[in-house]
């Protein structure tokens, strides 16, 4: 089927795997940047946002509608998609953030499940899927390709990976060197004490919600192009792969999250060409996340938490 000209290491035909590696790195980039968005919000507010994927999916559907049903310029649709993520996340954060602030992280997470269900319901109602009908959200950057080490690469894939890299680096620097970043880290340590020190806790948290939402919107914009179709259920569960990345980073380290995202993306893509494994490849994020969780918990015996109410 394919030429066996490529060089083989450990019995693996790398020439044949090249396109899958490119795809895996691009997917991994989206997972990584989503993971970073999730980790930053978790650090700043203690909320593990399970609605992350649903928000991106909703933004992508709006962009799809604007492109296909209006005559507005395309860039406006892309901007709207990203902005929608920021606005919805911010709205949730402003409405429910303070009410959940003193609660257990578990309860905070279930609150975002409520948001995810609401968004899922709206999407299933306004944009039903049926039969062979599929939506596509191609980005203009996908039509420009070049060859790198003998593999075709398009600019969307480059953008996904580069954006993840830049986001991770900038966020790390932001947390370390700016006043707002210091406030984030302080809130992550102790919200009450930070508030008594005069930090406007709610405004800082609002900025985290907004920033994380923008990342959700961007992920929702990039992913449909990389996985070829806009399927809101698949996009909603993007959050699982991103969570896997975040958990590999212990919900703390941005760079490990970045690496985790790439690992999840690569694992998912590299199983594709092997017929016996292809059917199970979408289980890769779950399995990696489970392993990460078990590894994290290897020393814990008794857990001290607030009662789950």
């Amino acid at each position: 089927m394919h030429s066996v000209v490529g060089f083989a290491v450990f019995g693996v035909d790398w020439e044949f795997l090249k396109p899958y590696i490119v795809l895996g790195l691009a997917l991994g980039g989206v997972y990584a940047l989503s993971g970073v968005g999730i980790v930053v919000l978790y650090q700043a507010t203690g909320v593990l946002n399970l609605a992350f994927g649903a928000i991106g999916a909703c933004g992508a559907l709006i962009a799809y509608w604007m492109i296909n049903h209006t005559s507005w310029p395309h860039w406006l649709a892309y901007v709207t998609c990203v902005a929608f993520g920021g606005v919805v996340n911010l709205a949730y954060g402003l409405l429910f953030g303070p009410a959940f602030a003193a609660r257990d992280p578990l309860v905070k997470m279930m609150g975002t499940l409520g948001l995810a269900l609401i968004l899922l319901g709206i999407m299933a109602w306004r944009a039903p899927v049926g039969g062979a009908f599929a939506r596509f959200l191609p980005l203009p950057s996908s039509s420009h390709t070049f060859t790198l080490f003998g593999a075709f690469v398009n600019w969307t894939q480059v953008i996904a990976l580069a954006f993840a890299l830049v986001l991770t680096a900038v966020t790390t620097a932001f947390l370390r060197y700016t006043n707002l970043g210091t406030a984030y880290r302080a809130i992550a340590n102790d919200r009450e004490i930070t508030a008594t020190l005069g930090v406007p806790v709610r405004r800082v948290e609002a900025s985290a919600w907004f920033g994380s939402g923008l990342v959700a919107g961007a992920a929702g914009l990039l992913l449909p192009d990389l996985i070829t179709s806009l399927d809101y259920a698949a996009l909603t569960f993007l959050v699982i792969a991103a969570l896997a990345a975040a958990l590999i980073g212990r919900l703390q380290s941005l760079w490990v999250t970045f690496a985790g995202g790439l690992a999840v993306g690569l694992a998912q893509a590299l199983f594709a060409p092997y017929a016996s494994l292809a059917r199970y490849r979408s289980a890769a994020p779950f399995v990696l996340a489970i392993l990460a969780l078990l590894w994290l918990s290897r020393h814990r015996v008794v857990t001290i938490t607030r009662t789950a109410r």
Partner: protein
Amino acid sequence: MAASRTPGQGAAAAARATFSLDRGSIVRGLAIAVFLAIAIFFLPTIGADWTTTFTSVAIYSVITLGLGLLYGRVGLISLGQVALLVIGVWTSTRLSFATDLPFPVLLLVTGAITCGVGVLIGLPAIRLSGLYLALITLMAAGAVNVVLVAINFPNGGGGFTGRTDTPDLSGLKPVARPSIAEGDTAYYRYVVVVAAVMFLVALLHVRGKPGRAWAAIRESEPAALAAGVNIVLYKLWAFALASFMAGVAGCLLAAQVGQPTAQSFQTQDSLTLLATTLIGGIFSLWGAVVAGCFSQLLPFLFQVQWGINPNFVLILFGAGLLQVLLTAPGGLAQQFPKDMANLGRLVWRGVGKVTGGGSGS
């Protein structure tokens, strides 16, 4: 509640303390009897599609019962109950193609196998708590879903998966219902009885020693440990019980639909199941019944009876989940009677004012 015990009365006193015949328990017992009588004799007379829906309600109330026990009593949250349900459906389908077990035995065997799987998942997960346990069960559910889509449900083929691309449709026998309950109405009554037994099992657990151990674990693990509660045992026990219930529900579901398909189970079902369980109420066993109604009866009412887009139900669940988390941790099962009592008092006071004002002028 706690009767003072003298030595020698032992088990009898304990039993009396557990089920003391005060007025409250008599009223409660009567309420349960009336409810069961309505469920068994009145509800199936409404209509055929209603009977099918009520069968689903009874089945789902068994799963939510297990989930409610886990979260409400022990403080453990599982987002993987739908995966266990799927394992139950799959196991019972595979078993009924491979063997001729009578239905009650099939129920128990499926429950036991699912229970085993649940304990296997629970054993490493038991060290995690709160957020991380919820996440690991969500991940496990996702992985199970992927495997299910890959191997699908058995349809009479050979091998472990029992799946063939060319099913012999003439010889295809769906999962057999019990011989005494072949018809829809009879099967509905059968399911209600099985569900009632499950609720009784849950009640015995909650009122007995496990319930006290769970309460101790939920309030504070270190304190429970210091008091000599075997934390690992009782956490695993809760997991096993919830998994057993999911397995039994899976077997009931398999026999209801006959030939299950992978398309009817989606990852988001785990989320809606959790939402409905919390909306129903986790601190009361009635909550599981309410949750079963919410997850099965409400979509039916929306879609078939009122002609409203069933996706509104999802929006409703999301909003309900947020509301329950913020203002009503006891769910509808606790909140509704409270609200009704408040309303009654308000109306009573209003009536008093009106009559008082009327006589004054």
